[in-house]
């Protein structure tokens, strides 16, 4: 079966074949951040399999904390964390960078540098 266009682009960016996912839901079962997501990780994969680009407007990829729990547990070897990153990347490539506003960080004074650097990387690149 050939990949749809969205799957192709994700595969180019992350090297992940989203078609390998058989929708078992294990990624979503182990994800600690689902309470804050508007789509569960396995649903994100399903949207991509259907070629539904509306997934680019979902919050989930921006909530994903890159903890790799899903990636190491997927029985089909799908690196779900990398898929989340490629969705962030796609949106940034299509719609440009978002700037981050340091004034919005209430705990800026004691926040370790590592948090700021990581947030800048993940959220603006």
């Amino acid at each position, binding site marked *: 079966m050939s990949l749809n266009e969205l799957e192709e682009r994700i595969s*180019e*960016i*992350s*090297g992940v074949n989203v078609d390998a996912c058989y929708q078992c839901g294990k990624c979503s079962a182990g994800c*600690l*951040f689902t*309470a*804050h997501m508007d789509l569960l990780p396995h649903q994100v994969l399903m949207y991509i399999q259907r070629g539904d680009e509306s997934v680019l407007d979902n919050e989930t990829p921006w*909530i994903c*904390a*890159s*903890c*790799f*729990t899903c*990636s*190491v547990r997927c029985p089909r070897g799908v*690196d779900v*964390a*990398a898929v989340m*990153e*490629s969705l962030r*990347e796609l949106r940034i490539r299509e719609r440009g960078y978002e700037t*981050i506003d340091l004034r*919005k*960080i*209430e*705990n800026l004074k*004691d*926040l*370790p*540098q*590592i*948090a*700021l*650097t*990581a*947030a800048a*990387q*993940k*959220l603006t*690149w």
Partner: protein
Amino acid sequence: MVIVIRVIYYPGCSLRNSYPEFEKSALEVCKKLDIELEEIPEWNCCGVNFSLSDNIMRHLGAVRTLIDAQEELSSTAGNEITTLCSMCYNVLKRTNIALKTEQDTRENVNDYIDDAPNYKGNLEVSHFLQLLRDKIGFDTIFDKITNPLSDLKIAPYYGCALLRPEDVAVDKRESPTIIEEFIRAIGATSVDYPYKMECCGNYHAAFRKEIVEIRSKAIVESAVSAGADLIISPCPLCTYNLGLGVENLGKDVPVLFFTQVLAMALEVDSYLSPEREELVLKNLQGS
């Protein structure tokens, strides 16, 4: 004859700017354990999160650091670069793996960085805990401690970066024991609790603090209900995030770096803040 283990060392930004007690206590510990950490003469921020996309350019900081380490090591036989921060470990290790295994990536990066020697891909990246386990040995550490922390119940916190993804895991990724073994080596008791490998919320500390608060509170609560007097961590960001959890839970649970409790057991300066020190001593005296 004392054999000194000399290893090249990458400090990383957060140890210098946010949590100097992590590095300072580690350096004290090294003197006692005959380890010589030799800082790379020039280094960059590691980038903090390994990019999962096709864009290796995001890792130029890490690549340059590896090149600097390679040049520094070329005069000696060693090939190991070690870090204290588990985030730095994760990024340097993954970058190193990419450069070692993907010839294209290595060539592109070497061509791009034309003001420095080529990276040959001969280095091994380790975390300081691995160095303690594999080069010094936890048994040796147990023999060397003079102040076993026998009354302390310590919760090991692993977080993500030491265990995931699989190819960077310092131990079995779903059932690690390295921090528990470390805790036994300093004479303390390790506390088992289910959330020791769960994510603290990572960079959400910056813009979605509430997410971190919820996650970290659950982790700290789980450690405390298992009986922990304190939590030890291998990462500055985890330490900060767990601190938010402690605040939210409204309990006085110190979150320390593993090197600080090792320093206490070896009776060298552990660089505890006065408030932390008071708390730890209180717990040690079992009040």
